[in-house]
């Protein structure tokens, strides 16, 4: 390195100047996260059969992220629209977007909306929504200026979620049982037990739909959970990471949020419109805060604005404009809705095909859960060794916890993927 620097013109001047150690010398390299390692391994794998099933995005039958030609049309129209201003939007983002996003989750006739005790904020994607919600809790939950937690996350949740709460200043992140590997469904007994023993006033993060394992809570389950949470004063933070893709409609996916609201619960809800609009790059997120009293709305709003100002000041407007335009126009909305139904339906179709193939192959294990679940995410039940076998021997990549994205399976790779799963589940463990 020294000789390389010295041989460049003017470099000796630099070498003289920086003789002391770097100011960053104590910054250690970050351990790469599982998702990154997985993706890297996939990218450097030169086997032609390789398949990546560990991504977040919904992929179409051609293996590409969903792009609606209809959205493309709207983008083009917007690019030539002279009336669209470029000025700073509000910290809360586009009002029309917030209005539609809030309606989408709570339903138009929600009492919370009517009683003006709802705050809706456009955020920088789903992560931005979770982060903002976390910051709000940290600074203001139950009058505590520096609330530390505990925050409860489900087992098998996205591994970055804990990091978001910790980055917001809440180190006390714990887990409640959710996925029952044996029954390939929700471990209700464990879940209720963990919530029963959680300290009162803990925050509990719940997937309203599209849990990474694909396992869903039934309406009966929600009734039990809500009652318990109200009794123990646990605060729900609901997640809708792929709004619309499970049941084909925004409002249907958000039923659990509406249910909790109808019981009078206060809650936060983070949702993303990236997937159902194919607007990944635009990163359109939304944080909803339902309050018990309208009298605190203004204060909460003002403090939320302060938090936003120190994070990103204002959210980016492009994607939100598109979403607002589509959701506000009945004709656009109908056309867009077709696309969402198609995505949800395709997920169901792929699940059916996976299940059928695995059955025909005689793959060990029970695969009913594949078709009992909805949406793009699903837990295969593969253990760590089997996941490794899958990637190393078969060049099929799933998340380390065995979860995968069914939309990444298509007619080209279905046979190969199912055979690979079969082999991984039947094979001897790698030594």
């Amino acid at each position, binding site marked *: 390195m020294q000789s390389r620097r010295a041989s460049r013109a003017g470099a000796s001047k630099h070498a003289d100047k920086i003789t002391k150690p770097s100011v960053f010398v104590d910054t250690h390299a970050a351990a790469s996260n599982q998702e990154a390692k997985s993706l890297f391994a996939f990218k450097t794998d030169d086997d032609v059969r390789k398949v990546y099933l560990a991504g977040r995005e919904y992929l179409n039958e051609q293996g590409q992220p969903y792009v609606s030609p209809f959205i493309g049309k709207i983008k083009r129209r917007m690019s030539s629209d002279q009336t669209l201003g470029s000025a700073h939007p509000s910290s809360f983002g586009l009002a029309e977007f917030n209005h539609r996003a809030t309606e989408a989750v709570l339903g138009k006739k929600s009492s919370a909306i009517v009683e003006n005790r709802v705050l809706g904020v456009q955020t920088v994607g789903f992560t931005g929504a979770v982060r903002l919600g976390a910051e709000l809790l940290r600074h203001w939950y139950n009058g505590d200026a520096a609330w530390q937690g505990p925050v409860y996350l489900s087992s098998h949740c996205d591994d970055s979620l804990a990091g978001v709460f910790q980055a917001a*200043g809440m180190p006390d992140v714990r887990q409640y049982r959710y996925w029952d590997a044996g029954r390939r469904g929700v471990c209700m007994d464990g879940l209720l037990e963990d919530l029963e023993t959680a300290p009162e006033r803990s925050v509990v993060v719940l997937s309203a739909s599209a849990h990474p394992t694909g396992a869903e809570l039934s309406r009966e389950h929600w009734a039990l959970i809500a009652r318990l949470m109200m009794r123990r004063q646990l605060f729900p933070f609901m997640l809708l990471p792929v709004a619309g893709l499970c049941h084909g409609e925004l409002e249907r996916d958000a039923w659990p949020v509406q249910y909790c609201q109808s019981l009078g619960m206060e809650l936060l809800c983070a949702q993303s419109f990236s997937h159902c609009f194919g607007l990944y*790059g635009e990163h359109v997120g939304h944080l909803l805060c339902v309050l018990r009293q309208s009298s*605190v709305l203004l204060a909460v709003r003002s403090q939320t604005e302060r938090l936003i100002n120190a994070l990103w000041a204002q959210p980016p407007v492009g994607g939100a404009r598109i979403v607002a335009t589509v959701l506000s126009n009945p004709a656009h909305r109908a056309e867009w809705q077709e696309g969402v139904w198609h995505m949800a339906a395709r997920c169901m179709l792929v699940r059916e095909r996976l299940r059928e193939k695995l059955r025909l192959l005689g793959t060990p294990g029970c695969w009913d859960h594949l078709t009992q679940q909805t949406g793009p995410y699903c837990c295969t039940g593969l253990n760590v060794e089997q996941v490794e076998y899958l990637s190393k021997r078969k060049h099929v990549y799933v998340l380390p916890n065995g979860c995968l994205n069914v939309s990444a399976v298509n007619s080209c790779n279905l046979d190969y993927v199912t055979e690979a799963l079969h082999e991984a589940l039947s094979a001897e463990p790698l030594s």
Partner: protein
Amino acid sequence: MSVFRDVTQAVPVAVFKLSQDFNNDQDPNKVNLGVGAYRTDEGLPWVLPVVKKVEKVIAHDDRLNHEYLPILGLPQFRSWASKIALGAASPAVQEDRVGAVQCLGGTGALRIGAEFLRRFHNGSNNTKTPVYVSAPTWENHNAVFASSGFEDVRSYKYWDAQNRGLDLAGFLGDLETCPEHSIFVLHACAHNPTGTDPTQEQWMKIAEVMMRRRLFVFFDSAYQGFASGDLDKDAWAIRYFVSMGFEMFCAQSFSKNFGLYNERVGNLTIVARDPDNLQRVLSQMEKIVRTTWSNPPSQGARLVAITLSDPGLFEDWKANVKTMADRVLLMRAQLQAKLQALGTPGTWGHITQQIGMFSFTGLNPKQVEYMVKERHVYLMASGRINMCGLTTKNIDYVAQSIHATVTSVQ
């Protein structure tokens, strides 16, 4: 009972409140000299012609993929944005020791930089390291660093109100006496709100002390191109520090010089001693971004990257920036001339000496109140005006208002 029942009403952000009051004012002569955004001579926001051009290109390009951007942002954007600040021929760039993180505007860049420094600078999670911001400074600087966990955000002497210039002695004094490893937020050019920048000789003195006392350099560059109309000239201070061997952060905003306020285009440029240190820093930056917004938005970054990387579009952009800077210079010259013609008491040379979008008029709070209430000319309590709020149509009224204010209110 709401779990948020104890939430207190936050004090409104001054500049937003000012805009609100302006909007509610019915007076036909009202003028808004508060907000920090460019306005045309018609008083309207300006979509740069080059931006319109490139937006159409993007909208019609079906090859562009719509996936999430990498966590650190669009690679092309990051490298071009850093080159704009440091110069493409910068030795630091040639030596692969410059990296960047695409962020949500200048605010986002400051936040990510602050979050990194809180975790890794001057020990591990040392929240007591003093962060120095200029007196006065953009009001959000305090909030960003405090929110990132720093407990000790202080100010360094900067504005000499009496002499209407830089308090260099005070500034250097603070640099000499502050704790080692303190973090200093420096305005790269067009200081907000005073419009007063150090001269090149003054920057050299500042750099000498900062190097000797091992102070961390954090440039805030929101107005490159706006100060003089020349991008390279406006980046002189940053480039000088790099040439002196400093490692540093530079938070860049493209809101003003691209007019992309609502696309939130920012870049945190990192200059390290060598590629190895740089890589470790970037790896930690990724972790921080992952827990803040996960991936940055693509639209604005794509637009800037395309513009900066195409020679023709780059020239178009420079010309557009010069248009904006020239209008500001014209308004400065005209305002000063009109005040002198009116015989307004006081000296007004500072209006043309100051640089960038803002001018510290020197009006005191009582005079500012008079301007707002009696004349319906809205400016910040500090006496700061946004030159872009002036137009050929309102400049006479504003000059007369200043005259009336200074002669009636002491």
